[in-house]
């Protein structure tokens, strides 16, 4: 994938809800893009359209270059409670019928990368919320994605855990040159993580602002960061 383009995409659900209308944006290879908007603005729907889980009824989603291997992380860790961390991280590989030894090696490596060395045999109920989310990210990484779609992955976590996972996610995405489309309703989080923040209007959702942010690394306490955060917040208020 060189670039992903959504042009004038619209989606109406069976129950008559117009979730999206005239949604257009581009994502370049290696970019970290956040979709920021109020609850119910169609952010998740946009992500599901990109994933191919649902199809749009207006407009087009165009992949310049081949459709990349994708990885998915939801708001809930959505782990299999009957499987240990390694088996959970291995899921995408098992579904592709990868040989067990190779799948185990890749899943273990993915767990190590999210800081869960030694937790391979732990069951989800033995892990904290943050650790479960790490397993969920490891599962996405095990698929070796070029595009990572994340739907409010850290919304249910406390501030401190969230900040740690934000840093780890950035590092992982940069190391592997992974493109990320990140859905959130947190101004702080989107400002900290993204190359670009796309602000969405309430339903039917479309992009009302496309804010490019200064280069990383960013200091959450710096004056520049506060200014950037204010720009994003102002755009969000204007959209609503």
């Amino acid at each position, binding site marked *: 994938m060189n670039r992903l383009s959504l042009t004038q995409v619209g989606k109406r659900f069976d129950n008559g809800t117009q979730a999206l209308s005239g949604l257009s944006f581009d994502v370049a290879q290696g970019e970290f893009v956040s979709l920021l908007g109020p609850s119910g603005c169609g952010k998740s729907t946009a992500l599901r359209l990109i994933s191919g889980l649902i199809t749009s009824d207006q407009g087009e989603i165009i992949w310049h270059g081949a459709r990349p291997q994708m990885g998915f992380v939801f708001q809930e860790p959505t782990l299999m409670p009957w499987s240990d961390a390694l088996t959970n991280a291995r899921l995408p590989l098992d579904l*592709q019928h990868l040989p067990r030894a190779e799948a185990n090696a890749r899943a273990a490596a993915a767990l190590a990368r999210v800081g869960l060395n030694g937790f391979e045999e732990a069951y989800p109920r033995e892990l904290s919320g943050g650790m479960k989310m790490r397993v969920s990210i490891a599962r996405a990484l095990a698929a070796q994605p070029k595009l990572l779609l994340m739907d409010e992955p850290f919304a249910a976590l406390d501030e401190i855990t969230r900040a740690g996972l934000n840093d780890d996610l950035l590092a992982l995405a940069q190391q592997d040159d992974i493109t990320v489309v990140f859905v959130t309703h947190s101004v702080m989080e989107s400002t900290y993580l993204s190359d670009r923040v796309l602000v969405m209007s309430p339903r039917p959702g479309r992009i009302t602002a496309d804010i490019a942010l200064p280069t990383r690394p960013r200091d959450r306490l710096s004056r520049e960061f506060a200014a950037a955060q204010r720009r994003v917040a102002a755009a969000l208020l204007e959209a609503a």
Partner: protein
Amino acid sequence: MNRPSLLAKMLDSLFPALLGVALLVLWQWIVTAEQIPPYVLPSPLAIAEALIANFPSLMASLFATLRVTMEAFAVATIAGIAVAVLFSQSRLAERALYPYAVILQVTPVVAIAPLILIWVGFDRVETALVLIGALVAFFPILSNTTLGLKSADFNLMELMRLYGASRWQILWRLQLPSALPYLLGALKIAGGLALIGAVVAEFVAGSGTATGLAWRIIEAGNRLEIATMFAALGLLAALGVAIFAGLSGLEYLLLRRWHESALKRPS
């Protein structure tokens, strides 16, 4: 350490046993003191004597009943899971067949038993007994497993689809494990029902052809050997308890690592 001491634990499990012994003593005392005739209520000692005197033949009957129960249970389990999987794969099959499964359930199986015996034939009584036991045990397995297969985490199902899972992969890796706690709960009910079905079927099958404990109860009743009747009844109860304990053990083994029901919480 806040754990209950070993002594307290032993007392805990000793208590029901002590109560049982006390009741037996009371029973023995009342029967002796009131001089209740043994054909009305035999004393525990008389029952024990009857058990020992008829031990080989009662054991043979016990194993006959056990075999029918286990076969009925196995047939019901396999059929129940198979039909539940069919329902999960095809809404049409579920809509078409489920009402008939309910009718099968609400019709007292004792009422069908004579018909089944005639159809299967009195030369193959054991097959008929297994079939009747299986019919009684079938429904809870079907309905619970169907519910369990439907209770799979929807987000996890979407995730698997996104990673290109086939419907069989979703069934095997997601729906069946999700249904496991429901299935195990149903098996505990079905194990008891299979025993009830086997006993009822034997009552219906009646004279001569049957060899299980139910027949021994009828036979002993006809001969007014009430102590033997109680001995057979005691063995049936023990069999029921053993089946329940075995299935509870299986449940614990399969769920203890991950399911909420097996969680130990600090109290």
